[in-house]
């Protein structure tokens, strides 16, 4: 029993780990909001910062903050007033001139605390000055230095301003597609085997793998639509990858309809095996080639490398790769149950 189903136990263990680690590891502290977002040179300003997962009052006296312009020039906050863990007020005394050759510029805000680590709000704040004086500006802004930044908590997922906690969907939505691709890949393998040997068993395996793969594809589409609603603003944005997966799923649904069209078992098996090979040959360009050729909302498209950079750090990899294996194993488990039902039905029909 255990010798036969070790991989099912492995699937359960990995998925339990995925759900626990994926839901319990906190997000990195981040900056949720800063007001005001437009500052005037030569004035004293007060910025109200709202943090996410932050612990400002734990590090009250060691907090530091800078405004940073292009070319690594920084201005340190004159005074920091912590109201609670999630809110603080930063006071900056802005010099008369900016180290910039235009009247408008943008700066980023950098916070540093031994508890939360260094946090950057990139290019979020607009700066304006009445007259331009590049030399004087450079002199005024080169007084402060930014050094010895803290690393912050290690075991965290990245804080991304549009995604927030929904970055965790990486371990639930994305692996469904891995599972689907592997199921369809194996089903092609059995289709080829059928065309070589005309063994009805290979046809039943193809059918079961396609059923499970189709279920995973549908679930991937629906979960993707929910995630899209809260990050891109609509359930269906007519994004190229969304459209192409819809086309791919339609092609695969035609596989099941095609099977229903034949009375003769052998004809059914032979034609659906050929169709299945063509369906997979269409699936690869639809999912992996066309979305990369145009702009897409999905990461890893429009010429970018697939997920990476700040969207997938090492802590996420620690959960994401096992998640891919776990969901794929679950897919094969579901397929194997569907296969056994199919096999039993066939045996009863033959008897």
């Amino acid at each position, binding site marked *: 029993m255990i010798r036969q189903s070790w991989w099912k136990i492995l699937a359960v263990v990995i998925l339990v780990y995925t759900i626990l680690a994926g839901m319990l590891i906190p997000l990195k502290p981040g900056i949720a909001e800063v007001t005001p977002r437009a500052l005037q040179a030569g004035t004293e300003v007060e910025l109200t910062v709202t943090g996410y997962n932050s612990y400002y009052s734990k590090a009250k006296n060691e907090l530091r903050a800078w405004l940073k312009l292009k070319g690594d020039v920084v201005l340190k906050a004159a005074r920091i007033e912590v109201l609670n863990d999630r809110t603080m007020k930063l006071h900056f005394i802005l010099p008369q001139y900016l180290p910039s050759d235009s009247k408008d510029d943008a700066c980023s805000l950098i916070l540093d605390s031994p508890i939360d680590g260094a946090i950057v709000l990139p290019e979020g704040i607009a700066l304006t000055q009445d007259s331009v004086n590049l030399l004087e500006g450079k002199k005024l802004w080169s007084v402060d230095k930014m050094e010895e930044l803290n690393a912050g908590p290690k075991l965290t997922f990245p804080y991304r301003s549009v995604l*927030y*906690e*929904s970055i965790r969907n990486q371990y639930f939505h994305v692996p469904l597609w891995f599972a689907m691709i592997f199921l369809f890949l194996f089903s092609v393998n059995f289709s080829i085997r059928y065309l070589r040997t005309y063994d009805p068993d290979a046809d039943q395996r193809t059918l079961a793998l396609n059923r499970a793969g189709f279920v995973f594809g549908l679930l991937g589409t629906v979960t993707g639509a*929910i995630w899209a609603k809260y990050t891109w603003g609509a359930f269906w944005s007519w994004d190229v990858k969304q459209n192409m997966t819809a086309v791919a799923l339609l092609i695969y649904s035609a596989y099941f309809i095609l099977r229903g069209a034949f009375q003769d078992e052998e004809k059914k098996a032979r034609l659906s095996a050929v169709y299945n090979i063509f369906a997979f040959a269409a699936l690869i360009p639809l999912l992996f080639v066309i979305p990369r050729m145009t702009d897409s909302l999905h990461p890893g498209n429009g010429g970018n490398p697939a997920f990476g950079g700040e969207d997938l750090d090492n802590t996420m990899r620690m959960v994401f790769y096992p998640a891919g294996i776990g969901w794929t194993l679950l897919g094969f488990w579901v397929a194997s149950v*569907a296969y056994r039902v199919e096999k039993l039905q066939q045996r009863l029909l033959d*008897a």
Partner: protein
Amino acid sequence: MIWNRLSLVCVLTLLFQQMAFAQQASGDFLRSIGHIYVVVAVILIIFLGIVLFLIYLDRKLTKLENQIKENE
């Protein structure tokens, strides 16, 4: 029987009221606490989808079991 149904209706109305209240309180329930409920919704959908497929297989198996019984 009728009491079962009535209690079910009561429970459902209470549940919907609670949900409506939660929405009024926080604007949008799924957006609260950093969109964490988007993840909960995704996990629930995957769970329900796999359960639906299981129900489909279950019904198929019941049919086959009945067939075997008839054959015997």
